[in-house]
């Protein structure tokens, strides 16, 4: 009975592992098969043909798409963290009137469905002359990242003991110096966590990127992959799409695995404590 339940337990563990990993595994082996061999089903890697990886960059400006995604996500992370850190200091350490209400409002913004602001955002971006530009996407993506950045950083900020800043204030430091010299170093781990989450959100964002860009050169990776077409209208270039998928997925997976514990901490701080 005991052995049986151990076997059952391990079978379950293996089943979950296979379910989680198989689609990525299958995408990787598919990306190394091309021509007609792609259209026979194989469960094991049997060829190592890099022509799909060459075709990704050959047939469309995919290098430019990746660069666009990095620029947009990088700027979104930098702005979110800069604004979020100062706001979180105020929310987490200073008791001012209306604090709870404001925090609730910011939390409410993070629950906005993206489509609810779509037409207003379209008008805003067009009137600022930012349609089909990367700054337009950066601006739009801030709506998705700034609220939870403030929220998660505030929960981290609250947990720091209050003696730290009191000592600095007694020594005559101004609030701005306290934020920069005292809290910034202490908040570095929290900033890494939140920054990573913001990066992933921006890297994966599709609806705004699809709606606010027009030309292939200005697209970020998600719409570029979604809109990839082959030589004929009937057959999608599956090998190329899989190669592109693997290229943009592996760096993110590497990041997530390296910062695994921090990400889990950030997710639970945002949800459970929130």
């Amino acid at each position, binding site marked *: 009975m005991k052995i049986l339940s151990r076997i059952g337990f391990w079978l379950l563990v293996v089943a979950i592992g296979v379910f989680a990993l198989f689609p990525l595994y299958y995408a990787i082996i598919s990306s190394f098969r091309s021509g007609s061999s792609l259209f026979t089903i194989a469960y094991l890697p049997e060829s190592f043909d890099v022509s799909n990886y060459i075709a990704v960059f050959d047939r469309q400006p995919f290098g430019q798409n990746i660069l666009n995604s990095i620029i947009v996500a990088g700027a979104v992370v930098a702005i979110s963290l800069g604004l979020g850190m100062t706001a979180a200091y105020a929310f987490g350490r200073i008791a001012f009137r209306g604090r709870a209400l404001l925090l609730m409002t910011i939390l409410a913004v993070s629950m906005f469905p993206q489509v609810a602001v779509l037409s*207003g955002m379209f*008008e805003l971006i067009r009137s600022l002359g930012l349609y089909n530009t990367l700054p337009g996407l950066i601006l739009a993506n801030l709506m998705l990242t700034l609220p939870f950045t403030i929220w998660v950083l505030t929960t981290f900020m609250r947990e720091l003991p209050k003696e730290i800043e009191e000592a600095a204030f007694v020594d005559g430091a101004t609030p701005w110096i306290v934020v920069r010299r005292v809290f910034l170093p202490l908040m570095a781990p929290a900033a890494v966590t939140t920054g990573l989450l913001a990066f992933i959100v921006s890297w994966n964002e599709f609806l705004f990127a699809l709606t606010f860009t027009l030309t292939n050169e200005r697209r970020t990776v998600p719409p570029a992959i979604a809109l990839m077409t082959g030589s004929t209208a009937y057959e999608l270039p599956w090998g190329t799409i899989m190669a592109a998928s693997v290229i943009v997925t592996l760096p993110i997976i590497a990041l997530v695995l390296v910062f695994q514990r921090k990400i889990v901490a950030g997710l639970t701080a945002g949800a459970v404590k929130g």
Partner: protein
Amino acid sequence: MTSAVAQGNVPVPQQARGRRSSLTRSRLRSAWLFIAPSLIILALIAGWPLARTIWFSFTDADLNNLSDYEFIGFENYLANYDGEWLGLLTDPDWWQSVWNTVWFTLVSVSIETVLGIIVALILNAAFPGRGIMRAIILIPWAIPTIVSAKMWNWMLHDQFGVINDMLLRVGLIAAPMTWTANADTALWAAVAVDVWKHTSFMALLILAALQMLPQDIYEAAKVDGVSPIRVFFRITLPLIKPALLVAVIFRSLDALRVFDLIYVLTSNSRDTASMSIYARQQLVDFQEVGLGSAASTLIFLIIALIVVITLAAGRMRLGEDPR
């Protein structure tokens, strides 16, 4: 820090009071300075666009010329022309998308909850390789939704898909299925991808709750010889219920606004469109900003209603909290 401010308001000896309140005042001033940039940005990119969307829903605006429109009241929602009812609320496609979204949310979140609990219980047990397992389940979560949809599209391909091949081999189906093109199976396919991608989020939140549970109850139950299943339903489940509810609400709100997964997986078909897809289609593909904004406004109201109910329920629960 709360006490520092409270003390600033009560009469304290003159000398100390002067210093403390000037410090308090300077901190209060800096508080507003510190949050002002964030508030201004959020008002510009969230508040203002939302207000404009709601306003557009009462107009006949067109995407090509957003500055030239007329106020038409509720006609985008419901209008009566010569005894014939028109507008969003009479459009069967809208109601189809509402039903698709609700069905998708209910089914995928239910499955994710059950699987999430199972995965969390496994990860909570001590076994060699637990750390690796936790890393593995994070991988689907990290893969961009578009990429996941494309990967599954390829696996679900009607002619060359590996899933058809597997099912044919074990004899579960007699002929290859067109999973994503057939309206009956396309939403199930979307549920499968969503479950694959988001179960780990659910599991990690539940795991965090499990790890905070007091161990002595379990030892007592073990001494009394209570069966593990009874322990789970009588002890574990009631104790993790608050965390479970938060996770379910987060996932439900996320699933209700689903766009990219269904858009890519089922290639924008009308039978499987979600509410967000319907709204964007009116707005961008048909250029009908008025109608699309009306749909967007309704989606916003539906989600806002759920959030308000949740927050109210949460506040009541916090009120009962003995802390």
